[in-house]
């Protein structure tokens, strides 16, 4: 299964043409019934447009500011720079339109957060994945 994930990650973000330096994988709580997620859903969730999983669980996204993968994630899935995303979150918060996701600095914190929240969703470097979390493939 490991090679499949790697393949998927390699293909997924940019079809082999990654702007970012590092690759990442989407991780969810093990209780999550899904096995894959679309990039559109990822974008909607991190922009606070989509708030619950199909089974009704509140989605709890977490932002990983690990510099190795943050920019890659921001550009490929959110279609904006990390600064734009920051301003977006500030405006959202200021206007009361929604609560922006919490921010962590390391992959380990992400894994811990996702493992702790049933609706958790995060992204980490592939080598940081542990059995405590479930990797979600990025489907097209």
């Amino acid at each position, binding site marked *: 299964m490991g090679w499949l994930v790697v393949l998927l990650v390699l293909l997924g973000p940019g079809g082999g043409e990654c702007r970012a330096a590092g690759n990442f994988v989407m991780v969810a709580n093990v209780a999550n019934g899904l096995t894959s997620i679309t990039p559109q859903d990822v974008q909607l969730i991190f922009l606070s447009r989509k708030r619950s999983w199909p089974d009704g669980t509140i989605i709890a996204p977490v932002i990983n500011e690990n510099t190795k993968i943050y920019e890659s994630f921001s550009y490929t899935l959110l279609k904006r720079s990390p600064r734009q995303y920051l*301003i977006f*979150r*500030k*405006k959202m*918060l*200021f*206007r*009361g*339109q*929604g*609560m*922006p996701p919490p*921010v962590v600095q390391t992959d380990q914190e992400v894994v811990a957060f996702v493992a702790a929240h049933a609706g958790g969703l995060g992204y980490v470097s592939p080598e940081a994945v542990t059995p405590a979390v479930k990797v979600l493939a990025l489907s097209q």
Partner: protein
Amino acid sequence: MHILRNIRSKIWACVSIALCSYLLATLATTWVNNQTKASITHVQRVDLPLFSQGLQVCNLFQAQAEDYENGLLTGEAGDVQRATLRHEQISPLLNDLVRLAGARHHELYPRILSLRDDYHDYFVMASQYYLEAVQKADIFAARKEVHQLGKLRAALEADFQSIADMLQVMTFTDLGANNQRIDHNTRLLHFLFVVFLLLTALAINWLANKEIIAPLAQVKKMITDFSRGRMVDKPRRTEGGDEIQELAVAFWRMTRELQHITVSRDYVDNIINNMSDSLVILNPDLTVQTANHATQALLGLGGEDLEGRSFRTIFSHPEASMADALFQGLLEGKAVTNFEALYLTGDEQAVPVLFSASALYLPDGSLQGISCLAHDISELKEQREQLEFLANFDKLTGLPNRNLFFDRLVRTMKEARRYGHLFALLYLDLDHFKPLNDTHGHQAGDLALQEVAKRLQQAVRDTDTVSRVGGDEFTILLSRVHNASDAMKVATKILEVMGQPFVIQGNQCVLGVSIGICLSSPELTSADVLLKNADTAMYAAKAQGRNRFMFTSPDQML
């Protein structure tokens, strides 16, 4: 209407009605304007200030929010301070709004009040959290509070916007209502104007008709009646009558006066038509203009037949030249008085009249016509002829009496002397007349005398004159004889006719006659002597044995 006692006050009454109407219209306009003014004042003092301040505070609040946002996004503390400064403007404006809405019991007052309170709560939190966030340069430090504050501000902003919108809507609604009210008032004023105009016109018309036109119509009727010769009724006198009524009464008095001092035409017509004499008025061309009833009765012609007829066909005079001169004189203005003339009736009968005429002149001196007065004297003439007859003729026999006989005798004598011819006078006396009278009565005697007269007239020529000069005495004047034998022949014929028996009242009797004849001679110049001579000869004949004739002297028989 005791006040309206003269025309001036009546006209003023009409003017007053118009002025009252004008006053009412002005009052109505004032009332309507006041209503509009109140409405506009409301807009001016409540709607517009609320609207403008609501809008202003809404804009300020939005600007404040932007300042905060900028501050948080850029991390500039100046923005947050500016936002705080905005609060210094927003707060008094909100207080003003609350005061204004509260004073006018505005329907949005509760909402404005709660808006102010919400804003103050918000501002207390915002000034604190946002300042902290900027100072820490980490907005996410107090994520939950900032998020709540954001929601609160969004709600507040919506509230500000909503109240500003509602104030705007209310202002425009009130302005629209004002427009409608003005339109409505304009229509109302138009309607009132038409109604007032109609009512005023009707009222003035009614008043003018009742107080001026109707009384004048009464006066006009009086004048018309009077001009047509009708009696004028006394005008109704009401208390406090005006000049028109005074005029009516004065006119009525004048008609009374005129009736007293003027002879009416009817009266004159009546006199003219009832006079017994004929009166004809001629035109200057001598045609008949009018003729009275007496004329129509006298001539047996109707008024239409007479009118226009030439007077020459009516008037006649035995001497034509005389009639012409008469008419010429009349046309020249000469009067004619008691001229005996003849009027020709419709069936060409002549009626003797006593004719008087005089010319009539117009005021300018021209001839207007001629008035002809004629008195019927036919009866008078008959009476005069009767008298003349009685004076000269014997009533019983119709023969000339002694008077006429003498007259003719004298005339015959004069003619005989002038022309040198002879005439003879026979004096007759009936024989045995007295016994007849005594035996058979006077009536029989009268009948006998009438028979004698008839026989004597038949026995002589038409030119001879048989007269009765006494009871049974007759004379016969033979106006022309050649000699004694002519007289003898006549005498013989008389004796012959008188010898025939008389039948008087069925009784046959014989009367004789004794005749004395006197022939004229130049020496005999006295009628009395002549008559006496004949009388003497008659007595001689009686003495000779009656029923014979005798000449005055034997030599006359030669």
